[in-house]
């Protein structure tokens, strides 16, 4: 079984691959566009008591296309002393990590791109690839602000990678599997104290892990309380300073697509992913799920993603920026000890019950 089980029997390998690539594009660009329009344009404006873009299309819904067209026609400036090859591929590395990330996200019982047994492990590994891209961008720009921004980003992303991994470990212990699909099933087939009306979404039992994970995601996305790498008042735009036109657009898409994909992963890990609690329809395991979940599942996951991105963006629009030392201290001295304690308690309770 794979994501295109209905068609894969007749289709040759190349068309399956093409379908997967198209599906990946949709799964990355659709959340990115929605996140930018719904949250960056509209929610941010409303939180500042203004309306945001209103002219391009109804309620400014075509504004994003206008912005993309604007970026595409801008000159692609490369600084004279930049390392040209590295400078050019750095944004692609960042975007690539987003595409690699979406590959393991399950969208339905059969709607997935790949079904790794070690999906969680893979997810945590490829999410750090973007650090490489950011470091490359910062170093290759031949600009002190870019370099400072890149180094700050590297320090921050590595520091917050740890609490993220440790927060997920709690989920993995409780689910007993590293397969993201398996984690979804474990949550929705489970029960809380014998009551299975809501399944067992891990944001209840793993609430500490959920909070730590969301904080770490906020930092991984360099959204505002943790946006030291692109602190505009001191570093112009950090590692993005020298980028313009299409390459800046790729960074921009990468940032918000990653926000969407991380929110999807958080929804899979903590909110039950694409599924509804199995007891609602009398399902018991993967094989008894009705086929229509392959269509409804992505919509459910999308809704949960929007709810989580709302939280990420809400915090972003409301918070001032951490200082560099506060940021590191918070990761190493607060988040990591708490998540270690969380793992210990989870493990003990897992064995006890």
């Amino acid at each position, binding site marked *: 079984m794979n994501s295109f089980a209905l068609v894969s029997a007749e289709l040759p390998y190349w068309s399956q691959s093409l379908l997967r690539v198209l599906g990946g594009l949709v799964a990355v660009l659709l959340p990115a566009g929605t996140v930018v329009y719904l949250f960056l344009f509209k929610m941010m404006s*409303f*939180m500042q*008591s*203004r*309306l945001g873009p209103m002219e391009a299309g109804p309620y400014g819904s075509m504004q994003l296309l206008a912005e993309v067209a604007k970026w595409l026609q801008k000159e692609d400036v490369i600084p004279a002393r930049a390392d040209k090859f590295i400078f050019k591929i750095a944004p692609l590395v960042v975007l690539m990590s987003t595409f690699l990330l979406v590959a393991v996200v399950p969208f339905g019982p059969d709607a997935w791109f790949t079904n790794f047994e070690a999906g969680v492990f893979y997810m945590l590994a490829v999410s750090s690839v973007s650090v490489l891209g950011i470091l490359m961008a910062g170093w290759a720009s031949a600009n002190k602000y870019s370099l400072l921004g890149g180094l700050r980003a590297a320090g921050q992303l590595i520091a917050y990678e740890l609490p993220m991994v440790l927060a997920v470990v709690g989920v993995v212990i409780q689910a007993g599997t590293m397969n993201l699909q398996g984690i979804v099933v474990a949550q929705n087939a489970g029960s809380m104290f014998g009551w299975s009306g809501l399944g067992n979404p891990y944001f209840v039992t793993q609430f500490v892990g959920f909070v730590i994970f969301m904080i770490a995601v906020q930092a991984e996305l360099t959204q505002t309380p943790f946006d030291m790498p692109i602190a505009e008042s001191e570093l112009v735009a950090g590692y993005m300073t020298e980028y313009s036109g299409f390459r800046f657009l790729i960074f921009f898409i990468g940032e918000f697509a990653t926000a969407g994909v991380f929110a999807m992963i958080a929804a899979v890990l903590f909110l039950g992913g694409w599924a509804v609690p199995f007891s609602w329809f009398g399902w018991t395991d993967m094989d008894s799920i009705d086929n229509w979940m392959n269509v409804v599942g992505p919509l459910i996951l999308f809704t949960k993603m929007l709810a989580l991105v709302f939280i990420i963006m809400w915090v972003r629009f*409301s918070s001032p920026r951490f200082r560099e030392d506060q940021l590191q201290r918070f990761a190493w001295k607060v988040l990591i000890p708490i998540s270690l304690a969380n793992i210990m308690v989870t493990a003990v309770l897992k064995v006890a019950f």
Partner: protein
Amino acid sequence: MPKIPGMFKGLGVTFNTLMKTATEGANTVQYPHEKEIPPTRARGVIALHEGNCTSCMLCVRSCPDWCIYIEAHKELAPPRRAGGAARKVNELDRFDIDYALCMYCGICVDVCPFDALFWSPEYEYSEPRIADLLHDKAKLGEWMETVPEAPELEVGADKKGKK
């Protein structure tokens, strides 16, 4: 009662603003579609009452960025009383204000001893060409129609000082 952390207060503020904007509308005005009415004493544009101007050049000299240009010549006017000598008056040839330079400080309006310059709240006079922002005597005179009536004096303000 324990103190609510500032972060959650901040989240509350932004969320309340979000709900308020969604239900009651934004604080901003969608400018080209609806116009904001500025206060009557707003500093929109400077109008010239040509008849009052004696081309004394005080406004030109007081302008911090030299955006007022006056040229004038002397003319003989008929005497006030029969048999008197002919009067010399300054006739304005040119009175331009370059709004590309003007910084709306209003010193010219304050300094004018003969009440020839007035503030008008009009603000829609942007131009595609920067040279068109130089308003000449005729155009500055047209702005006079938009100058609001001076407000009533406060009680007692019209009394002459005792000294």
